[in-house]
C-alpha cells in the first residue's frame, strides 16, 4: 500500500510545528524536532526538504505528496518550473496525474495572488512534469487513474495511457492487469489497436484454463520479468550489450485468452501482414504464440493455454537479439520469393539454440523439441564455427562474422535453410 500524503498522515496528531498555510515552518529547529518531523513525514515516500525560505529566523519545510497516482478533485493547473510558474496545461476535475519525486525542488511557492501554497511535482498523461497544487490532488489507484483517463472528453491515445502506466508500481500494474472489469471497460472505451497496446504496458498475464495443480508450470507461463531474470542469469555475458541497450522482455509480452489473442492475431497477420488465408480462422488453431513482426512495436503474444514453460523464453530471446540477422534473412526471402511469414529459419534456429539452456538450467524443466529442425542446424553452426561466432552474429549484430567464417558457400546454405530444404541440409551434414 502506498504511504498516504503527509497532510493525511498528520490528521489527528498534534504536530510539533507551526502551520503556515499548507507549509510547516520550524522555529529554531532542533535535531529532536527534525526527527519528529521525519517520523510524521513517514518513510522515504515523502520528500521533506528543509530550506531557508519563509519568515526571518524560521525554516520552511518543503514537501509534496507521496509519489503515485492522483486524480484532480477540482479545476487545477499544471505549472512549469519557471520563475513565475506559468501554466502548462489546464486540468479539469477527474483528470489523473502522477506525482513524481521532485528531485529537491522547492515545492512551496507563491502563485499569483493566491499566496504561498504547497505543490507536487507531477505529470499528466499528455504533459509535464510540472507543479500541481497539493489541495487539488486526491490519491487513487492505477485503475482509478486509467478510468479517469478513459472518461475524458476525447479518446486517449496509447501513448497517453502508457504515460499513466509508466509511473505505476509493479503491484499496481499487476492489479490492473488482473482486473477483468477494468479491462472490459477499457476494451469498450478504446479502439482495438489502442486497447491491444495497453495490454503489454500493463503486463497482462493470464493463467491457463487447465491450470496445473503443482510443480513447475503451476502458474502457467512465466512472466516477462521472470523471463528476463532467467535469460540474464544463464546468458549474462552473451546479453550484456543487449541489456545495456535496454532490451528486455518485461513490458513487451502479453499472455492472453481467446478474445485478445484473436484480436492481436487478426491485427498482425490478417491486417498488417495481409495473410488472407487466416481470415475467419481461430488464431489458436494456427499458433500458440507470435510476434508483431509487421507492426512498429514488436510485441509478443502468447495464448495462455498453449505452448509450454519455454515459450516465453524463446519469444523473449528474440527481444535480446540484434535485428540485423533476421532482417537480412527476411530480405533474402523476399528477393528469392520464399514464403516467410515474417520470420527467418536461421533466426529461429539460433533463438532456440540459446533458449534451451535457459529453460533447462534456469526454469529447471526439460525443453520440448520446438523448432527441432532449425535447432539442429544452429547447433551444427556453433560446433563448426564456435559459439562466440553465433553470439556475436545473433546478439551483437556481427552477422558478417558468421558469413565470413562459413565462407563462399554461405549464400546457397542461407537460401536452402530459409526454404526449409531439410533434405539438402541433411545430405550436406547440417542436420
Amino acid at each position, binding site marked *: 500500500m502506498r504511504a498516504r500524503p503527509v497532510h493525511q498522515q498528520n490528521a489527528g496528531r498534534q504536530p510539533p510545528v507551526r502551520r503556515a498555510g499548507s507549509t510547516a515552518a520550524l522555529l529554531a529547529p532542533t535535531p529532536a524536532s527534525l526527527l519528529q518531523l521525519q517520523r510524521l513525514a513517514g518513510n522515504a515516500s515523502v520528500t521533506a526538504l528543509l530550506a531557508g525560505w519563509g519568515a526571518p529566523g524560521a525554516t520552511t519545510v518543503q514537501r509534496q505528496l507521496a509519489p503515485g497516482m492522483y486524480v484532480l478533485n477540482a479545476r487545477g493547473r499544471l505549472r512549469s518550473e519557471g520563475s513565475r510558474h506559468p501554466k502548462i496545461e489546464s486540468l479539469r476535475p477527474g483528470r489523473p496525474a502522477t506525482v513524481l519525486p521532485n528531485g529537491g525542488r522547492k515545492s512551496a511557492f507563491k502563485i499569483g495572488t493566491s499566496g504561498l501554497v504547497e505543490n507536487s511535482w507531477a505529470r499528466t498523461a499528455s504533459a509535464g512534469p510540472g507543479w500541481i497544487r497539493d489541495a487539488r490532488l486526491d490519491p487513487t489507484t492505477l485503475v482509478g487513474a486509467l478510468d479517469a483517463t478513459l472518461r475524458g472528453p476525447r479518446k486517449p491515445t496509447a501513448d497517453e495511457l502508457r504515460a499513466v502506466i509508466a509511473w505505476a508500481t509493479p503491484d499496481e500494474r499487476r492489479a490492473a492487469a488482473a482486473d477483468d472489469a477494468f479491462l472490459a471497460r477499457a476494451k469498450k472505451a478504446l479502439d482495438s489497436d489502442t486497447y491491444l497496446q495497453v495490454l503489454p504496458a500493463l503486463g497482462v498475464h493470464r493463467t491457463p484454463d*487447465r491450470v496445473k495443480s503443482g510443480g513447475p508450470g503451476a502458474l502457467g507461463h512465466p512472466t516477462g520479468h521472470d523471463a528476463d531474470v532467467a535469460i540474464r542469469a544463464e546468458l549474462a555475458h552473451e546479453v550484456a550489450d543487449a541489456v545495456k541497450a535496454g532490451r528486455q522482455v518485461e513490458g513487451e509480452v502479453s499472455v492472453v485468452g481467446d478474445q485478445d489473442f484473436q484480436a492481436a492475431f487478426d491485427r498482425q497477420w490478417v491486417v498488417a501482414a495481409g495473410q488472407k488465408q487466416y481470415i475467419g480462422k481461430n488464431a489458436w488453431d494456427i499458433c500458440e504464440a507470435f510476434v508483431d513482426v509487421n507492426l512498429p512495436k514488436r510485441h509478443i503474444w502468447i495464448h495462455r*493455454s498453449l505452448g509450454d514453460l519455454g515459450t516465453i523464453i524463446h519469444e523473449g530471446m528474440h527481444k535480446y537479439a540484434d535485428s540485423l540477422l533476421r532482417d537480412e534473412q527476411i530480405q533474402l526471402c523476399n528477393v528469392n520469393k520464399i514464403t516467410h511469414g515474417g520470420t527467418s529459419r536461421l533466426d529461429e534456429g539460433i533463438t532456440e539454440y540459446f533458449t534451451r539452456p535457459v529453460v533447462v538450467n534456469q526454469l529447471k524443466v*526439460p525443453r520440448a523439441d520446438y523448432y527441432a529442425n532449425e535447432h539442429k542446424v544452429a547447433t551444427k553452426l556453433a560446433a563448426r564455427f564456435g559459439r562466440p561466432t553465433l553470439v556475436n552474429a545473433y546478439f551483437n549484430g556481427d552477422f558478417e562474422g558468421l558469413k565470413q567464417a562459413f565462407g563462399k558457400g554461405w549464400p546457397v546454405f542461407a537460401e536452402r535453410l530459409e526454404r526449409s530444404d531439410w533434405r539438402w541440409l541433411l545430405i550436406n551434414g547440417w542436420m
Partner: protein
Amino acid sequence: MPSTAEEWIDFARGRLSPERTHLTLTDAPPVEAPGDLGAVAGFGGEAEGVDLHVSVYVFEEWGAGLAPMQDLKAHAEAQGREPLAVVDGPVLFFATAGPEQEDRLALFAVADCFSGPRL
C-alpha cells in the same frame, strides 16, 4: 478454444493433417496407452511408406506432458529410433522415426507441424 479432451484430440489431428505434414497417417495404437502416462485421451498413427510413428496424448493440466516426455524419448533412443516431442498446452505430441534418410525427413516434416506454422 478446445475445452474437452475430444476437442483437444480434434485440435491435434488438425496439426497433423495431410495438408500440413504432406504425410498420410493411418491409425495405430499410441506408443504407450494414455492411461499409463496419466493422460485422459490419446491416439496414434503410422506414416505410409516410411518408418514414422506418431502418438498424441491429452492431459488434464497445462504442460503436464513435460513429465513423461523425457522417459518416452529415452526409451525411443534406447531402441535406436530418433524421437521428437512437443508439449503444447495440455497436449503432448510424440513421434519416432527409423534411421533411414527418408524416415528422418518424414520426422522433420512432422516437426514443422507439431508447433504450428512459422509465425
